[in-house]
Every structure is written in structure tokens, then in C-alpha cells.
């Protein structure tokens, strides 16, 4: 029942300030796409344009094959769940869910059966006669979802719908929303600033920063092959270390940190081996091996243990490299027993480490 959504070179400026710049993405019918980015990156603005509340400054929005750029919000037939649910406080749960059906002038009996089904869908069968204020946050959330789905929209939009819930409930709802979306086959555009949420729920994630879509990729690619230092930093825990290229040796690319420490990385792909050019390597804590002695043939990055943080299934070790107190996070097994002040060696995995040219526009 889902329909594709196509966003074609959409711009939105507010009096000279570009809140969304050249957003382009085609969301397949039935796909779950997340817009992920820090606060102020233009996620809501883009969603509002898809919903029809804001008119793009330029660009087109298509639903299915139809250009809806000029269609007003009340005739786009898109479901939407607002951040604060936006339930009508003067209507019961039943009346809230019946609202879109009444606006579509459905017969009374039809309305009753569809509202009943929607209530079943979100497991709120017996709460139809309550007012929103008499419900818990999680229940209000479900009513909002039921109201957005009851008229069977081909596209569903959600703007940080779980932001107001506590962690446990949030995880539960993530699971339920994902299940609902899959079983109904509705196309989802989901806004969140929580990278974990985006990774667990989405088919694809579009990472936004300063109004631009930096990368659109499935969660695995996004995590393993971030396209920019910003994406690398924003998605998951990432070590970003400034380096310059020195030479290619038998044990891989030889690099130098800003503090002058040399180290080599096996199998690292260096596209522009230019010693003058500052670069950044990006490595996840779980891809770095930590040891007390260098038992490899290459040069390993030497550091001093700063702190060990036990996190249940593993221990996160903070290692200081170089004179600037740059901290590198390394994930080790849970009962690693490094002491602060100890010297340790970091071994990077070239196939799981990204290298970024240090451009002026990165952040």
C-alpha cells in the first residue's frame, strides 16, 4: 500500500538563511528512511515540506508519480505523527482516531469498524472513551500512531516521535513502530537525532548537517564506510585522529600524528599520498587492538592509558596519544586490566579505518 516519495533538489530558505539545501532522495514504496542529524540541521523543515506545511523555495516533491509540490497539506493524504503527539485534548481517543475518517465523510458504521481496528492495531482496544489527558505518554503515542494510520495513508511521517518517552519504553516503541510499518507496507520518513534509533529502525538513513544531506546509505554502510568526518563522528562512537602521510612501507602506510608520533597501518587505502596534506583517520573503538608490547613487525601508535571504564559486556579504555592529550577510545574485553599511566600500543585495522582529506568544509 506504500507509495514512493521523491525529493528532487529541494531548497528552503528563511529570509536568506538556507535551512535545507539541495535535498535529493528517492524513497522506495514501503521503505523506512530516517533523517538523522543534530538539532537545527533542517530535518523538521524537510519533513514539513513533504507534509505540505511548508512550500519549498525551489525543487519538487513527488508522491508516487504525482508532483505534489503545490498540493495543500490537507489533500496530500499523508499520515503524520507529531513530536508531542498533537492529540486533540477535547476529543476522546475514539473521536481523535475517527477525525480523519469524518473529514473524509465515511459512513458511521465504517468509521466505527475502522477505528476499532486501529485501536486493536496499537493494543488500546478498551481505551476509546478516554480523553488524551487520562492516558500515559506511551498510550498517547499509540493513539497518535493509530490516528495517523487509520485512513491508510501511503506515506507516514514521524518527527522525533519517541523523544518524550523514557529509554525502555522508547526501545519498545521503536520495535512496534518498525513492525507496524513493515506489516502495513507503508513508506516511512522518520526524523530523529538519535543515531542508535536511526540505525536500528531504518532501511536507509539520510544524515543531515547544516541543511545538507551528507550521506544516504543503509545502516551497515553508514557505520562501516562513513562518507565524511561528520558522518563518522555523528554515527556511533568514532576516533578521529589528525595525521599526515609519511611513506609506504612493508608494514603498510606510515603516518605521523600532529604530535610527531609515527605509526603504520596495514592495508590502509591512501588515495592521495601527499605528505603536505593534513588528513584524518577514523577508527571505531572496536576495530583497534590494544596491547602492552608491540609484537608486530610494523610501527604501532604508542600511548598512555588514561582511564578504564567498565561497561558490562566490555571495557572502554581511554588512551592518550601525543602531547596534546588527544584521547583515543579502544574497546577491549570486559576484564582487561590496564592501569592509568601504563604504556600501551594501538594497532589499527586498515580495512576498517577510513581516511579523510582534511578539507576546510568538514566539521
Amino acid at each position, binding site marked *: 500500500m506504500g507509495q514512493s516519495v521523491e525529493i528532487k533538489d529541494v531548497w528552503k530558505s528563511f529570509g536568506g538563511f538556507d535551512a535545507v539545501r539541495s535535498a535529493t532522495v528517492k524513497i522506495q514504496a514501503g521503505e523506512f528512511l530516517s533523517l538523522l542529524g543534530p538539532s537545527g540541521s533542517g530535518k523538521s523543515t524537510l519533513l514539513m515540506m513533504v507534509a505540505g*506545511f511548508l512550500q519549498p523555495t525551489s525543487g519538487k516533491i513527488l508522491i508516487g508519480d504525482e508532483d505534489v509540490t503545490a498540493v495543500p497539506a*490537507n489533500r496530500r493524504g499523508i499520515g503524520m505523527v*507529531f513530536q*508531542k503527539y498533537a492529540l486533540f*485534548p*477535547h476529543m476522546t481517543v475514539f473521536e481523535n482516531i475517527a*477525525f480523519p475518517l469524518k*473529514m*473524509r465523510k465515511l459512513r458511521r458504521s465504517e468509521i466505527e469498524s475502522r477505528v476499532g481496528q486501529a485501536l486493536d492495531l496499537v493494543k488500546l482496544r478498551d481505551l476509546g472513551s478516554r*480523553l488524551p489527558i487520562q492516558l500515559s505518554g506511551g498510550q498517547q503515542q499509540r493513539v497518535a500512531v493509530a490516528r495517523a494510520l487509520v485512513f491508510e495513508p501511503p506515506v507516514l511521517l514521524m518527527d522525533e516521535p519517541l523523544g518524550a518517552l523514557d529509554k525502555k519504553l522508547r526501545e519498545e516503541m521503536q520495535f512496534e513502530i518498525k513492525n507496524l510499518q513493515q506489516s502495513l507496507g507503508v513508506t516511512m520518513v522518520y526524523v530523529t537525532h538519535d543515531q542508535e534509533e536511526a540505525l536500528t529502525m531504518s532501511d536507509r538513513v539520510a544524515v543531515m548537517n547544516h541543511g545538507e544531506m551528507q550521506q544516504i546509505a543503509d545502516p551497515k554502510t553508514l557505520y562501516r564506510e562513513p562518507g565524511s568526518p561528520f558522518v563518522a563522528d555523528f554515527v556511533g562512537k568514532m576516533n578521529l585522529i589528525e595525521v599526515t602521510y609519511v611513506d609506504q612501507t612493508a608494514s603498510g602506510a606510515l603516518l605521523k600524528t600532529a604530535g610527531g608520533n609515527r605509526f603504520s597501518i596495514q592495508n590502509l587505502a591512501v588515495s592521495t599520498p601527499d605528505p603536505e596534506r593534513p588528513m584524518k583517520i577514523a577508527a571505531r573503538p572496536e576495530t583497534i587492538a590494544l596491547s602492552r608490547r608491540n609484537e608486530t613487525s610494523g610501527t604501532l601508535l604508542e600511548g598512555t592509558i588514561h582511564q578504564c571504564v567498565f561497561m558490562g559486556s566490555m571495557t572502554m579504555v581511554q588512551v592518550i596519544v601525543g602531547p596534546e592529550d588527544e584521547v583515543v577510545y579502544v574497546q577491549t574485553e570486559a576484564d582487561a586490566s590496564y592501569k592509568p599511566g601504563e604504556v600501551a600500543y594501538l594497532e589499527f585495522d586498515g580495512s576498517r579505518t577510513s581516511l579523510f582529506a582534511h578539507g576546510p568544509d568538514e566539521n
Partner: protein
Amino acid sequence: MSIKEPHNAGRSDSRILYGAGMSWSLILPWLGLLVVGFAYPVFKLLSGSFFDDGFTLVHYQRAVTEPLYTAVLLRTLRIALIVTVCALLVGYPIAYAISKLVRPWSMVVAACVLIPFWTSILVRSYAWIVLLQRKGLINTLLIDLGVTSEPLRLLYTEFAVILAMTHVLLPFLILPVYGALKTIPADLPMAAYNLGATPIKVFWKVVFPLSLPGVFAGCLITFILALGFYITPALVGGPNSLMMATLIGQQTTQVLNWPFAGALATILLITTVVLAVMFRTLLAKNRGFSSGI
């Protein structure tokens, strides 16, 4: 003026900050002034209506049986009702406009409402005399436009009373309605629109119902003030548009029949209280509003 706060956090905060002793010592001087300056004279006037060489109901009998006085009471109720309805019809759109307009324009409209509000009622009532008199602005305009050849009799009529009172009381309606409209979260009308409602449906199904607490509060204040209004009806009204407050004023200052004035005042007071209570009961029955928004 009761503009509804979204969260009334202020009350409990000050209760923590100042103990009961402090609160009472601050309140007592004013309470004393209120008792001596207001409660006692009112009590004296009202109780005086029951005595005339011993307990008697003769003043009430007179007020109820003489057609003049019941006619004035009914006229007062009718005018107050019409004024309230007119104020609502004119005031609601203004309040809505202030809540919807963007920054500089909302301020301009709000100023147009508030500046007259800060001006003395006496001045505003005299302004209506200037406008409505035989050779006033409105008559001159009508004659110049050829609508009428003779100046119309506008001043000292019920029409003049209703017009001037509506104008004078308008801010008392606009402010609570504006307050209620302002507390409606912006995403509610948006959600309604998203769910397929036309802009007109958005207004009648969502915005208007949610502004009702402000509408009720504004109407109640306007109606009660209109029931007891003195200056404006006295200035722009004539003998055929005499209202209760003016009648009571005549009894105290011209006829000097204080016990009878007391009886009329008691009747007006009871009428006001009964209507106010009925109004509140109606409001409380209105689902959802007692539980807040």
C-alpha cells in the same frame, strides 16, 4: 483579568517562599481597608433595604410590583446580553487576528485594543457623544452621503447605549479569548489540517472548541460588568434606555431614598450572582475543560 496561564507554577512557589505569618501581615492592611471602605457600606446599604421602623419587605414589594422597575431590570438584562453577544462577535475575530498575525502587526492590533482600554471610560463615553450627537460626525457623514436629509436621533437611545457599552467592554472579552487562543499548541491545527480538514473545519472542530474557556470567561466578565454599568448608559442613554445602575444612582443622589436604592441593589446583586453561578455550572459540565488543556 483572568488570562489563563499554561502552567500556574507561580502560586506554589510563593507559598514556599513566604510563610503564613508573612502573607497575613501583608494582606491584613488591605483586608482592613476593604472591610471599612467597601464591605461595611455595602452591607449597610443592603441591610438598610430591609428596615423602615423595624423589619419590612415593602421596598422589595415596590421594586417587584411597580412595572417601571421590573421593566428596567429586564431591559438591563437584555442590554447586557446584547452587549455580550456583540462584544463576542466583534471581539473574537480581533482576538484571533492578534493571535495569528506576525510580530509588528499583532502589536499594532493589540495596541488598538489596549490604548482605549487604558483611557478613562468617561473620556470614551464622551467621545461617543461627540460622534453620535445631532450635528456629530456620523450624522454629518450620513447627510453628506445623502443617506438621510434630516439628522438621525442616535444619541440618548438604546442603540447608543449598546454601541458605546460594547466598545467600552470589548477589551474584557478580547483579552481572555486571546489568552485562550495563545495557549493552543500550534501543532493541533496543523495535525487537523494534515488529517484532511479544510481550514474552516480546522477552526470549528479544533481552534474554536479549545478557545471556549476564554470565550466563557470573557463573556461572563463582560456580562457582569454590563449588568452594573453606570457611566456610559448614564451619559449616552436616555429615559427610554434607563438601566439598573443609573436607577440606583438616581435613588441615592436625587430621590435620596436609600432603603429603596438598597433594595434595587440587592436585586441586581442576586440576579448577577445567580446568572454567574448558572454560567459556571454550564462551563463545568462542558467536557474536558474542568480537566484543563
